[in-house]
């Protein structure tokens, strides 16, 4: 936590110094510092989204592995414990916890529900729901069902990735729109007298007001651009 704050503060200071060196306008440096505070948070959210996407791509692979193990003659719980020994991926920690659970209780449906709760993701819900249903009701047809579900899930994950890409575009276009006033300021400061007028007290007020307007506009765009997320539908 403190590390994160330090990173935020450091990026704020660096941004402020760069702005100060380029333009020598105090108000602009202040705005750059605020922007710098926000950068690491944004990077973190982006990293989390990327990890989530990677996790989703591993889900069909998990189903296929389970199907192969069951086809080879293993029971569902043995196949599940085996599936936890994957090359390290995003799913590995959750899977090994669930496998320990299965080894202790041999209750695959419950362990799978706990794993889905840990991941808290609609796509993971779909995959683990399939495992649960197959463990509950499927007999000899389990491998075929798992393979079919894996194929379905693969296409759903790619469809979801398409929607997410659209969302990322919307987010990026909001950023581009909000950068317009600052490009204007940068061009204006090429003229020395304009730069001087921004350094005055009224000028600082004008820049801060523009910053506030941009923040409002950006928040508004994010609010409008936020697509409805699919809710979790699996019952624990």
């Amino acid at each position, binding site marked *: 936590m403190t590390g994160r704050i330090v990173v935020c503060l450091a990026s704020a200071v660096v941004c402020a110094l760069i702005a100060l060196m380029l333009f020598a306008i105090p108000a602009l440096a202040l705005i750059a510092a605020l922007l710098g505070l926000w950068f690491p948070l944004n990077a973190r959210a982006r990293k989390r989204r990327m990890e989530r996407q990677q996790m989703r791509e591993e889900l069909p692979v998990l189903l296929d592995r389970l199907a192969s193990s069951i086809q080879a003659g293993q029971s569902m719980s043995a196949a599940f414990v085996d599936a936890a020994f994957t090359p390290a991926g995003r799913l590995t920690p959750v899977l090994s916890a669930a496998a320990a659970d299965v080894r202790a209780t041999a209750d695959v449906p419950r362990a799978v529900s706990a794993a889905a709760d840990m991941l808290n993701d609609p796509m993971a*819900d*779909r995959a683990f*729901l*399939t495992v649960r*249903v*197959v463990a509950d*009701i*499927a*007999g000899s*047809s*389990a491998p*075929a*069902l798992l393979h*079919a*579900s894996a194929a*379905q899930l693969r296409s*759903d994950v790619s*469809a979801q990735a*398409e*929607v997410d890409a*659209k*969302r990322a575009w*919307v987010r990026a*276009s*909001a950023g581009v*729109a*909000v950068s*317009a*006033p600052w490009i*204007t*300021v940068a061009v*204006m400061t090429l*003229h020395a*007298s*304009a730069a001087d*007028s*921004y350094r*005055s007290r*009224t*000028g600082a007020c*004008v*820049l801060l*007001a*523009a910053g506030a*307007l*941009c923040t*409002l*506009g*950006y928040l*508004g*765009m994010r609010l*409008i*651009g936020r*697509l*409805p997320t*699919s*809710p979790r*539908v*699996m*019952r624990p």
Partner: protein
Amino acid sequence: MTDVVHGVQSWLIQVPAILSGVGAKVVAAISPASALWPAVVLALASVTLAFPSVQLHKLEKRVLPWAAPGWQAPTPKRIRVAELMRRGNEVVAARRMTAGLATALSLLVLLATSRVGAALVAGASATAATTLIARTSRDFRATQQRRSIRYELATVTDFLALAVSAGLSVESALTRVPSYFRGVIAENIESREPSARAMDVLRTLAQHNSDTRGLLDALTVCEATGAPTAQVLHEQAQSAANRVRADALASAGRREVLMLIPVVLFVFPAVVLVAIFPGWQELHSSGW
């Protein structure tokens, strides 16, 4: 449009209240005792509120979900089908409330300007405006609900296809839905009468929701013609997933256009502000 017409109609019912206000005004004009005014206003207000279509306290529980979109009825079970059917009542509630507001406004205008025409116009336009707002918010919530049922139905159909391929019958697969899912469909199946079949619940839901009707039709056709149910359910699941995806993409496209609103309202003024400020200050300092 019909909403607006209905709104104006239910407002017209209250014209007698307004006319009684005119009468009071005439009385006040004949004997201009200013101390009478508060009493007249009070009497008018009580007449308006006692009028059958403006019993606001009864409307409260219907207006609440309208005013606060996240509001849910306190009883968790069996309310969801009711919630789908409540739209009829909700329309009436919104209409009555707009009529009450319009009457209050036209009375205010009447007292302020003592012009009957102005009061009628104010009341009618207030009715039209509030009705439109109410209808938009109702449509918005209906869309939200339809979308959440659509998503839920996609996952439930997927499960049904899986369960039927595993060898269960459609009915027993449906009865297992509540143990795996939460949401409208699962809750309705869980809270059905003990003697009712899960299929009947689907039938009830299909009366209000076209997606559910599609699934029900497909199942009925399978039952009637002996078509392979598992395969048909797989196809249904596929098309449900496609619908969800098309919805998401369409909404993304719509939102891209709506995002111009903050650009015009906030970012454009910011650009203009920073662009004209240096020139303005130069003019200012040179004595203009």
